[in-house]
């Protein structure tokens, strides 16, 4: 059973990873003026909450399954996202975007790294779990 949870998590992390890559591509589009800031913000703002939600959902599954290490690994990011939601700074503001762009980019790169590490961690846990199941 644990193996299946982590299989799901692996696919999930991959999806989130691609989501972040999409964000990064959009940032560079904005920088090189392929998209105007208004469209940019309208487009990306649709994805902010789903991204947070998806990540929180994964953490919820870990919680329900009692995968404490995996949950612990995800907690800091959840706190970070929650903090942004509470301060209402999660949305992209078209009037400020060029001033805040470097921050956003930094954050996106960090998240890519985070999801990448998560991906390999889940993969490892999945393999370990399946081997353990096969042995049992």
């Amino acid at each position, binding site marked *: 059973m644990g193996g299946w949870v982590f299989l799901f998590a692996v696919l999930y992390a991959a999806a989130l990873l691609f989501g972040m890559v999409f964000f990064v591509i959009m940032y560079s589009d904005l920088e090189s*003026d392929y998209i*105007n*800031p208004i469209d940019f913000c309208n487009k990306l703002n649709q994805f902010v909450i789903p991204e947070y939600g998806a990540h929180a959902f994964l953490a919820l599954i870990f919680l329900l399954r009692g995968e404490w290490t995996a949950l612990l690994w995800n907690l800091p990011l959840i706190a970070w996202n929650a903090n942004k939601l509470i301060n209402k700074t999660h949305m992209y503001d078209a*009037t400020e*975007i060029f001033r805040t762009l470097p921050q956003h980019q930094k954050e996106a790169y960090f998240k890519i790294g985070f999801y990448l590490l998560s991906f390999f961690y889940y993969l490892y846990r999945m393999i370990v779990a399946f081997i353990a199941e096969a042995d049992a």
Partner: protein
Amino acid sequence: MASPAEQLPPGWAAEWDATHQRYLFIETTTGHTQWEPPAAGSAETENAPPAGVTPAGGHGKRRQYAAGQTQAYYGGEAAPDPAYGQASAGLGVQQQGGQLFTPGLAAEGQFANQQQIAQQGGGTQGGYYGQGEPEYLNQQPQQYGQPPVDALANQFGQMGVGGQKQFSLYTTNLLTLPPDPRDLAQPPPEIRLPPNACISPSPTANADPSYFRSTLNAIPTTSSLLSKSKMPLALVITPYRSLNEGEEPVPLVTDTVIARCRRCRSYINPYVQFIDGGSRWRCCLCSMTNEVPQLFDWDQVRNQPGDRWQRLEMNHSCVEYVAPTEYMVRPPQPAVYIFLIDVSHAAVQSGMVATATRTILENLERIPDEGERTKISIICYDTSLYFFSMPPGSTDSSMLVVSDIDDVFLPKPTDLLVNLAEARGALEVLLGRIGEMFQENTIIGSALGPALQAGFKLMTPIGGKIIVLSSSLPSHGAGALKNREDNKLLGTAKESGLLQAASPFYKTFAIECSRTQVSVDMFLFSSAYQDVATLACLPHYTSGQTYYYPAFNAARSEDALKFAHEFGEVIAQPIMLEAVIRVRASRGLRMASFHGNFFVRSTDLLAMPAVPQDQSYAIEVQIEEAITIPFVVFQTAVLHTTCYGERRIRVITAALPTTSNLSELYSSADQIAITTFFANKAVERSLTHKLEDSRDFILQKLVDIISAYKASMTSSGAGASAQLAISENMKMLPVLILGLLKNVGIRQSAQIPPDIRAYSQALLTTLPSQLLIPYIYPTFYSLHNMPPEAGTIGEHGVILPPPLPLTSERLERHGLFLIEDGQTIFLWVGRDAVPQLIQDVFELPSYDALRGGKATLNLLENQFSQRINAIVQKIREMRRGVYYPHLYIVKEDGEPPLRLWALSMLIQDRADVLPSYQQFLSSLKDKVNGASGGY
């Protein structure tokens, strides 16, 4: 005897050898050197033309006229072309009179003739360059005049090989030198471009400080040099400034020949170089070689060959082009004005409605409408919207009421937005009636958001200007705001929250507006809290302006007069529509951040739906890579539609020399531009961080500058010093920074209402330097003992008395003083003022009969009153912008709030927790010494 350089045969160059104190002669083709002058020289001397002129016969018809510039550009080390042997090679810069011939002059005869004129020397320049001013030519011979070579040699000798004069740095000690307000009127440090940088002799070839200022008039070559100096690098631009009487309008290029660089898209300007015989030009920003357009040398008006050296864009730093259709997304739109007038109870009661409608009526004539295309609409609102339909041709109008404010719709598809000329009659009747129509209105509340949406809907297809007049906090429909004023928050870290937008509506609406080319101006009148901070968002992002008249009451004629004057000026202003601004700079420089009223549409493009006059923008510049060229160019291009329906491009070019020398960097600093930039920076920081942080930030910047200056420019180096040294040209910086720290927008205080603060911040970020500097450092005059000529008409209008330093030490008990900051004027009356003075100025028997507060000075039948009135009048008129300052009479023992307000302008005094100038300096000194001691 003339310098040997001019007596040499072709192929020889003379170089002054400093160690041997004599000339070294070099045969340029072989590299052979000798101490004796080459023999052929003396024989040919008589016949050879003076140095600096290319012998026309020698080269046949080869058109080599850019060599001089190339030479200047790459320094004097390059071996001179043998053909130019007679030129003053080796003296650093070649002087090439011949370069100034005109390819456009088709006939060779003309060319030869021109050459002859050039040979006649500086005195008889008149012929060809007749349009230039002779005295200017004599001042700047290195640019292209032909004075005797000796003089040239001397001059270039002083300038060194680079040909660039050194800035001389004078250090002053701030502690012993009290600030003198007159220093603020001094022009920025001179821009010393390398010789031959500019191909035009015109004095207007570099941008005027009123259009363009840079914090440093010599750009450091590397970012490490800049960070070592701690100086900010920023530009302060006012691309659309008003023209004073007697000023030439911006020259207009009408033939639609627009030469632009293929790569960086910059416009041709006086700093490019013509190469390949004038058929190509090299861009001064990116060094790209471009073709000169075929029609560049063609005079389209007279249909004959023209003279490229006389083209406006080659002689003026600020020009306007008529833009061809490639520069249009749509045909030029007409100017559209929509007035949103608050007619709720409060607005009617204060007399705002009556004053506003009367002002519009009186100024209908002045609304820019040359082609009779201007459209206009009036919408009134309280908790409902009142539209007025004015069918063309009739003088009747009908009112349409929309009370559904949740889903705003236009009650009628036509006749709401009418052509000003066609509906003139109806408008006049309507404006005369609005006041009485709502006379009895008792509805309280304001549906500002829905009114904005309605106005927006009405003008969406065209774009234009919405002018909002609002007397209360928006309370109904979209964009309703809550009263969040909380006196407990004032002076705490949470105060900056009150300066940020409370509702996202105004920001998102502003973005929509910017997209559809709608600009919003706000006129706010409330006596209660109105959330200026939130409402100012709209003008901020749509390039409008906020005007605030706290506790407006038209029953006071001063209030009505001020508002009517400013409102009338705003309406009558010729605006630029559908504008975008881009600032380009030489390679290695990048525009990093932008401050001012606009929407940043891409990394370097500022969108402005309607540009008002006299708004200033600050741009921070980053040095991305080392700069290797001797001077850099900044070019601001404003693509816009005039309110008369013509698409135009305004181009402002400014060239600044580069330097790798720290002392040159300091001596070229412009304290006015630095202060303007810091004001913008402080406001930005107070919104993103805290007010406290913004003050600390500015103070820290100043400490850093002084510390860096002390460490690198004074003998005390890093150690402690009893002096507080700074360069002469920055000696007013500390007092300006102190003024900024004490300004209402930034000041540490628990008493300033957030509305007043927000308005002040809006001013700090938009005022051009000319208005901003008095706003930060007010002007202080003593009137009772002013010199006899003050207040009378002099050569430049009314003569003002000499300004005094801003300290109450100067206040005398029997005196009459005037303090003004461009927004308010205070007339301070001492308590022992003699009755005669009171009688002469106020027509009152004694000091006791005088009342403080807003007042109008009557023009009395005595000379003193007339002089004072002339001074007040001059103060109200002398600056750009629409502002008409109130006059307050302040009695020395009058009501405390007014007195304290007036005294708060004397920024060199100690007030409350705020330090006096002396205290400020000594704390600066401690910080500077402490900071450097720590290393």
